[in-house]
């Protein structure tokens, strides 16, 4: 996630232009960061559609708060923190709306769990058993390659907490999926 110095300078110029009200500059920032922003929100919410909604909402918040951003700071870190907050807000709203309880145990199918569709379903179900933060940490680390420090800054938690969340998330997934066996 390290940004080369040259591109950091040009990004700074784009940010300043966007702060002065340039729509083109803001569009350039969206183009530059939307993939990473999607990755952050996708790690927190449970579906692709929710991730898109959170990205959209996050960019709106960023646009409105742009004049409060100090251009000497890394723009990405600031933006991804906003994205993470937008995603967490969405998760909270969804929880209030879908007051239905999650089943106490994950269903144990009789079919061969090695079938990819089924495996995916089981993993998805297992991920819902993690806390929002644990899920976000493991996805950001294992899927998107964020470092513990980057995860901590994005989610607003200490680096050590990100590290221990990752450990607990992995342990929980192993425990929840231990009955899935494959033949080799």
């Amino acid at each position, binding site marked *: 996630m390290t940004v080369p110095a040259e591109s950091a300078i040009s990004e700074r110029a784009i940010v300043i232009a966007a702060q002065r009200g340039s*729509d083109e500059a*803001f*569009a350039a920032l*969206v*183009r530059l960061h*939307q*993939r990473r922003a*999607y*990755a952050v929100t*996708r*790690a927190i919410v449970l579906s692709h559609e929710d991730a*898109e909604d959170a*990205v*959209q909402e996050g*960019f*709106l918040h960023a*646009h*409105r708060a742009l004049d409060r951003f100090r251009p000497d700071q890394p723009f990405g870190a600031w933006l991804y923190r906003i994205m993470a907050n937008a995603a967490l807000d969405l998760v909270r709203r969804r929880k209030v709306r879908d007051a239905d309880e999650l089943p106490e145990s994950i269903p144990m199918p009789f079919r061969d769990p090695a079938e*990819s569709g089924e*495996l*995916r379903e089981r*993993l*998805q179900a297992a*991920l819902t058993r993690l806390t929002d933060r644990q899920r976000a940490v*493991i*996805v950001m680390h*294992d*899927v998107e390659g964020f470092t513990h420090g980057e995860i901590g800054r994005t989610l607003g938690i200490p680096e050590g907490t990100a590290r221990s969340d990752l450990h607990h998330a*992995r342990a929980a*997934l*192993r425990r929840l*999926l*231990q009955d*899935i*066996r*494959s*033949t*080799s």
Partner: protein
Amino acid sequence: MTHDRWTNGDSELTDALRVLYAAPAEESYWNALEARILDYVARCDERSVWWTELADMIRPGLIAAAALILAASLAMARSEQLEARNAYATLIAPSPASVEPSTRAASVGDGDMAIHYLLSR
């Protein structure tokens, strides 16, 4: 041979997570998402400008309404005060019909008194 999928290390778990969370790869998807984001931001900003203008109009309107309510309350209080004062004045003013017969009662006879009373009505 059967083995535990997840105790072989975390690589299989990571692979499964990557498949599950894979972001769309098509460039057209990202172009569409960018357009959607920019459109959403523009629409929300327009709405926010509209609300700001409305709020600007509402503020003086509210002040004028408050001033009107205050003026109406003052006028009502004043008219109530006047009404009360008039009612009091009417109450304490001497009534010619009831006082005259009683003051003259001592000096005139019963017959005259009756005539005076009838004439006074």
